[in-house]
């Protein structure tokens, strides 16, 4: 990433963040059927205003709504080798990648960024379910390692939003090897004494759940998110019985001791700020929307929790 994208893009993000929503479109809530005005839905963070159903939110929108005033700087992720297995099923893997890139406008299934939330500098990594089901590719592994390395370098907490249908089958064993690789990334944070907070979003499954998504210091999930290792259909086929209502949903996992909290999207940012600041021994944060931090090339990427406190 060059100087331009590092320091100019945040401003562009903030300029456009609230203006990209089309004016006259409606979305039907898949849960309660209510027709929702697009703009209203976006302002409600893609949560149904009628039934509180949490709909998918793109990785970039997640970053925009997370960081103060939507301002963040993307962290560069090392590009892995392309199509290592020369994989083809009914389509060639590079073609599948290209169409996912066209559909999402993103390079891959994870974005890494740094910025401030509640005036607290953090690194955030967001998995994009819209990109090939958020599947765990070598790029995703590299992204998590890059996020951890950046967090360690800047002494910042890492907040990771997981969402994945599982492995990137087209990368075969190298997808599987992201389980140990991302576990190493988590260990880097733990060794550096930095908080690693996982927010599990719908759905988080397979090898993703069985590695970095379950290793957080604090585990938060969005309401009704499906969180599992084996999916419900696979289990039903194996045990040949119907599964109980709400099985493998966030609230079910909370009941079974697998999560710390289930948190509504509208409270998530404040809660993250609260937890992170307590773990870092910082003073209580001022809640609510804050004006964008002043961006100078020296300040944003390099600032530490102390600097943010104005010490």
């Amino acid at each position, binding site marked *: 990433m060059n100087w331009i994208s590092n320091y100019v893009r945040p401003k562009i993000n903030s300029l456009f963040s609230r203006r990209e929503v089309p004016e006259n479109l409606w979305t039907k809530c898949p849960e309660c059927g209510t027709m929702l005005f697009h703009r209203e839905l976006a302002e409600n963070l893609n949560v149904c205003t009628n039934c509180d159903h949490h709909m998918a939110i793109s990785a970039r929108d997640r970053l925009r709504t997370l960081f103060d005033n939507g301002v963040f700087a993307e962290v560069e992720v090392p590009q*892995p*080798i*392309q*199509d*290592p*297995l*020369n*994989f*083809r*099923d*009914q389509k060639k893997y590079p073609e599948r990648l290209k169409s996912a890139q066209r559909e999402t406008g993103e390079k891959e299934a994870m974005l890494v960024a740094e910025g401030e939330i509640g005036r607290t500098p953090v690194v955030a990594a967001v998995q994009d379910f819209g990109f090939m089901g958020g599947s765990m590719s*070598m790029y995703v*592994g590299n992204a998590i*390692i890059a996020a951890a390395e950046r967090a360690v370098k800047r002494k910042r907490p890492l907040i990771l939003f997981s969402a994945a249908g599982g*492995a990137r*089958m087209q*990368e*075969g*064993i*190298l*997808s*599987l*090897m992201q*389980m*140990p*690789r991302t*576990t*190493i990334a*988590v*260990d880097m944070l733990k060794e550096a004494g930095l908080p690693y907070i996982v927010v599990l979003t719908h759905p988080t499954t*397979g*090898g993703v*759940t*069985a*590695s*970095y*998504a*379950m*290793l957080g210091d604090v585990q938060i999930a969005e309401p009704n998110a499906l*969180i*599992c*290792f*084996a999916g419900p259909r*696979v*289990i039903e086929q*194996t*045990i040949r*019985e119907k*599964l109980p209502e709400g*099985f*493998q949903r966030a609230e079910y996992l909370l009941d*079974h*001791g*697998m999560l710390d909290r289930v948190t509504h999207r509208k409270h998530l940012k404040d809660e993250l700020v609260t937890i992170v600041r307590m773990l870092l021994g910082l003073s209580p944060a001022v809640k609510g929307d804050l004006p964008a931090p002043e961006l100078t090339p020296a300040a944003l990427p390099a600032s530490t929790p102390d600097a943010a406190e104005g010490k």
Partner: protein
Amino acid sequence: MNYLEFEKPLAEIEGKAEELRAMARSNKGMDVDKEAAGLDRKAQSLLGDLYKNLTPWQKCQVARHPDRPHCKDYIDALFTEYTPLAGDRNFADDHAIMGGLARLNDRPVMVIGHEKGHDTQSRIERNFGMARPEGYRKAIRLMNLADRFGVPVVTLIDTPGAYPGKGAEERGQSEAIARSTEQCLRLGVPLVSVVIGEGGSGGAVAFATANRVAMLEHSIYSVISPEGCASILWKDAEKMKEAAEALRLTAQDLHKLGVIDRIIAESVGGAQRDRVSTMRSVGLCIDDILKQLAPMSRKDLVRDRRAKFLNMGQAGLAA
């Protein structure tokens, strides 16, 4: 002998030789020795040919062969003073995972592995080698014990995958696997893994995040079973041959990809045809690796393991 589908021509020849010999036993004076010996030679050369160029799907079948030596067989054959250590101290003892202290050529080690069972009763008892959370948590406990007393850890990988069950999910299958991988990475003692049959996805990674990973010549290691991959990507579980090809799950491909370190040769016709010599080869390989890792400090062992996985994925495979 259980013949695999692709071994049918071999079964025919061996069957003919057996028939001839049976005839000779009941008809005195009938000399079939020469003819039978000819068939034997033919069978032997066919066996060699068949196994020289196994397709990935054939390798999957060999890797899953019921007569292949399993974890318990290796423990009986290679280790002395095996002392099983049971339980996760939370919920149960998972019989899909064997583990305990043992000696390999007098050197104390902690041996841990998936056991599939060898007949109906033992397969059910072992849950076909599919572990539940308590299995991974037992392994974590044993690895931790080994770590504190400076005992190297040897893991034998042979699982279709972690068990997809209701209780397993409720008790935190994902978390258990994640912690087991994490424990592997933190060990200050040598960790050596050998894939002896099936390396099934996360259930295998949980034990195979090792300093050195070896695979038997006809074993497999994959992110998903060919059947599972076929039903997802081809929408047709019968396309498992194509999926097996595409997934690059053979020891040979994984070695080229830099995912595994060594390939252990099996006897002609696979481990199931000469269990003793295959197990001996595995023992020699483990011993050799342990000797190689012995001089390394705790710090270096952790660093070595991390570097191995962080550097993975530099090389691809040609079409």
